[in-house]
């Protein structure tokens, strides 16, 4: 095996460059523009240093270990990168590059205060900590990096401190992520007790655990990492935070930060003994319910970015479905189907990182151009922002899993795994697989509803508001930042055999001895596929080009519905588009809270119609729970009387109790 000692040092260099990009802008003082450029340069340079290293690790499958000296602390600052880590490092570096490039023009320079420096500090720290989380070789480094990642992303979410909504979202995120981290602390401390060392390499002893012990670890990891990943029903923080953050930060968080949680989950799975089959089934069930729930709510949101954020919940659900099916099929003796599902899940990690960041960046461009995120105030943007619009359409097609793009490939793999296992299994088990396949298909259909609503109303038709009518095209650097993930999306769709070949090494770490997905079932991804996909793409591009060349026809009203002068106010709104689904298909759960005006009286009076979307899980389960906890905590507040005598009494009683306790036992 060829080992080049420089590869992991390149990753280290990337992390150091990120840190430099974090610290240097802080030293710029009042010179905001210089701080801005330095922060961006640090992020770009770090990403460029890391990308080839990650690719090299993924190609060769080598494992490298490094321990930079950290004398005097007794702690080992160990980093180790293998193919699995590199698999997650690659999107981290790629998206950090795109998002930093995007931020150059997206982040308008405020004239006062250290906002640019503050932003770049946290942005670069977030980038470095994500690389560290994935590269950590012991649980101490992992937890520290994890915490730094949570905190820096929190500060990025509340970038706009004057925004009340952003502060609330940031608060929710901070609480949720710390509750999740508490479980991770439990997980790693329990592992430390068993293994006697913090190093991941010593966690091999966990393979000898009895099944019940392994279940405890699995449950801790599922809750801890699931909270961060946005797993249903622990996803409540995600839509709020993603919507409130600056768009490139949303792209980074949705694209890669929450994927580091999946990395953690997969890494823990490699330490544990084979889990019972129902664990995989549980994970798959949570995944599919999360994806149905997420996409159902994505189709209702009046807010562009919130809709995208709910779609993230849906995609995480699909990935978890794949991972769960991998575990389930592996435990029930369908190795081929297990390999297909794992490959699909892993590829979907990449795909989602690409198209979701593309869509978030596109949403950011729309926000930048029009100043609003409300879908019903947009419209007619394809004519005003043609390049952004086409890139957004490509992202929408990818997320809806349309063929020449990447979303199709990963979902096809999961479908193939489901069908293969369903055909091989018997009785009730086959029914389970087919049920999953049907529910996944249902999800796919609803994605189409959400995407057509999202893009159709914002891009097509006439502008629904003055803000939308005045929109302008984004600057070239923003377009370039969006074009990179769009091209990679297209590339994966045209030549799926390349990413599938890259998957072999990480899969060998996760499931040693599992068959190659291409060997399980003849996959259609060969040269012919590429040719057809390429042709399809070329025809589409050519068609668009022709359409652009042709002179626009003067607008005509097709069918006025009896109105003599139809206006944009009569066009379909976002709410109207999804109303059928909302009223007729969904149950009572995801319905928005609607304040109807009173019945008409004899005299005209002020009326208001107001609908409010709150996450049903948050509103029905978590909010009441936390309000009750707060009540309990408030009762305990009486203990803090503020009088020293009372505190001394507590000390005295505690001493007496401890004395008595140590004496009696």
């Amino acid at each position: 095996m060829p080992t080049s000692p420089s590869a992991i040092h390149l990753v280290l260099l990337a992390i150091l460059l990120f840190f430099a990009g974090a610290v240097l802008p802080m030293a710029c003082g009042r010179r905001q523009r210089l701080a801005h450029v330095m922060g961006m340069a640090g992020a770009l340079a770090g990403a460029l240093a890391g990308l080839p290293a990650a690719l090299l690790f993924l190609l060769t499958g080598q494992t490298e270990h490094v321990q930079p000296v950290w004398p005097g602390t007794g702690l080992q600052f160990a980093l180790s990168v293998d193919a699995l880590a590199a698999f997650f490092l690659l999107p981290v570096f790629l998206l950090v590059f795109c998002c930093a490039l995007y931020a150059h023009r997206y982040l308008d320079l405020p004239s006062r205060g250290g906002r640019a420096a503050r932003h770049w500090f946290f942005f670069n720290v977030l980038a470095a900590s994500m690389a560290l989380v994935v590269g950590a070789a012991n649980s101490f480094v992992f937890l520290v990096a994890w915490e730094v990642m949570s905190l820096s992303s929190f500060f990025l979410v509340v970038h706009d401190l004057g925004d009340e909504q952003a502060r609330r979202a940031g608060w929710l995120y901070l609480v949720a992520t710390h509750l999740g981290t508490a479980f991770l602390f439990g997980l790693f401390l329990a592992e430390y007790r068993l293994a006697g060392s913090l190093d991941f390499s010593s966690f091999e002893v966990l393979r000898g655990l009895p099944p019940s012990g392994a279940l405890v670890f699995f449950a801790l990891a599922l809750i801890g990492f699931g909270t961060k990943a946005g797993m249903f029903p622990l996803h409540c923080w995600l839509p709020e935070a993603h919507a409130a953050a600056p768009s490139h930060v949303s792209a980074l968080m949705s694209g890669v930060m929450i994927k580091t949680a999946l990395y953690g989950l997969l890494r823990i799975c490699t330490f544990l003994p084979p889990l019972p089959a129902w664990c995989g089934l549980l994970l798959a069930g949570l995944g599919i319910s999360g994806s149905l729930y997420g996409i159902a709510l994505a189709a209702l949101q009046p807010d562009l970015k919130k809709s995208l954020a709910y779609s993230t919940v849906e995609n995480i659900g699909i990935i978890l479905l794949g991972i769960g099916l991998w575990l389930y099929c592996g435990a029930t003796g369908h190795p081929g189907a297990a390999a297909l599902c794992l490959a699909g899940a892993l590829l979907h990690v990449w795909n989602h990182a690409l198209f979701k960041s593309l869509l978030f960046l596109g949403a950011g461009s729309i926000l930048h151009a029009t100043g609003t995120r409300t879908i019903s105030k947009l419209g007619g943007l394809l004519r005003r922002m043609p390049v952004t619009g086409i890139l957004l359409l490509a992202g929408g097609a990818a997320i809806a899993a349309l063929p020449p793009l990447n979303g199709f490939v990963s979902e096809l793999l999961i479908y193939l795994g489901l069908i293969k296992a369903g055909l091989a299994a018997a009785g009730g088990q086959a029914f389970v697989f087919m049920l999953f396949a049907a529910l996944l298909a249902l999800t796919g259909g609803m994605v189409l509803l959400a995407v057509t609503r999202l893009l159709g109303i914002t891009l097509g038709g006439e502008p629904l508001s003055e803000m939308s009518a005045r929109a302008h095209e984004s600057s070239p650097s923003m377009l370039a930042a969006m074009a990179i993930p769009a091209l990679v999306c297209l590339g994966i769709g045209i030549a799926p055999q390349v990413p599938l070949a890259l998957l072999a090494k990480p899969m060998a770490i996760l499931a040693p001895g599992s068959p190659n997905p291409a060997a399980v079932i003849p996959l259609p991804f060969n040269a012919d596929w590429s040719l057809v996909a390429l042709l399809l793409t070329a025809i589409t591009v050519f068609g668009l080009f022709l359409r652009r060349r042709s002179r626009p026809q003067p607008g005509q009203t097709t069918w006025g519905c009896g109105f003599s002068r139809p206006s944009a106010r009569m066009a379909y709104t976002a709410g109207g588009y999804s109303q059928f689904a909302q009223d007729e298909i969904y149950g009572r759960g995801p319905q928005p809270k609607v304040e109807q005006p009173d019945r008409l009286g004899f005299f005209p009076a002020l009326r208001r119609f107001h609908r409010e979307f709150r996450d049903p899980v948050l509103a029905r389960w978590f909010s009441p729970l936390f309000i009750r906890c707060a009540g309990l905590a408030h009762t305990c507040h009486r203990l803090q009387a503020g009088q020293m005598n009372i505190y001394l009494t507590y000390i005295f009683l505690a001493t007496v109790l401890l004395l008595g306790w140590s004496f009696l036992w």
Partner: protein
Amino acid sequence: MTNVTSSLLLAVILLNFFILGTSRLGACIRVVALQGALLSLLPLFLYGVNIHSLLLSAGALLLKGWIIPWLLFRAIRQVKIRREIEPRIGYITSLMLGALTTAIAFIFADRLPLQPEHMQSLFIPAALSTLAAGFLMLITRRKAITQVLGYLIFENGIFIFGVLLTEAMPLMVETGVLLDLLVAIFVMGIVMNHINREYSSINTEHLCLLKE
């Protein structure tokens, strides 16, 4: 020797009761000084006359019997108070509680797994009951000055424990503890003055305004 130490310790316990039962601050300070002075004799009787015990005794006598009482008298002269009026728990009740804790201390000390030579001595019960008396003072009194006295009594209890361990405990540690005490009293005197100036009283309850 055991007779002398036992009677010293008994006197210390009785003085605890006196302090718990009186409201006059001047008397309280004098009695605490007396208690400290009695205790400072303990090492001499327990370990005989040698450099270690002499130094310890002299230091303790100087601090507890002279310097600290002097500081405290100065403090009450400055803030012009003579009595602790209305304690949180009445004098009779605190006396009863003191008696109760002393009884518990004796019972508890009986059951502790001690070294054989300490088995029958009064050291442990005296130390525990003095600690409890100090705690009671701290808990039940309102004035800062009486709380300082409670703290002193508390320290006396620790001193009795410490004497048992003199052989194990180096001189430096003992001196350190005594010095700590002196500094603490010093600081408390200053704080007391400030409380007085701020609230025109040295009732510590006013400090609860500083909560949160």
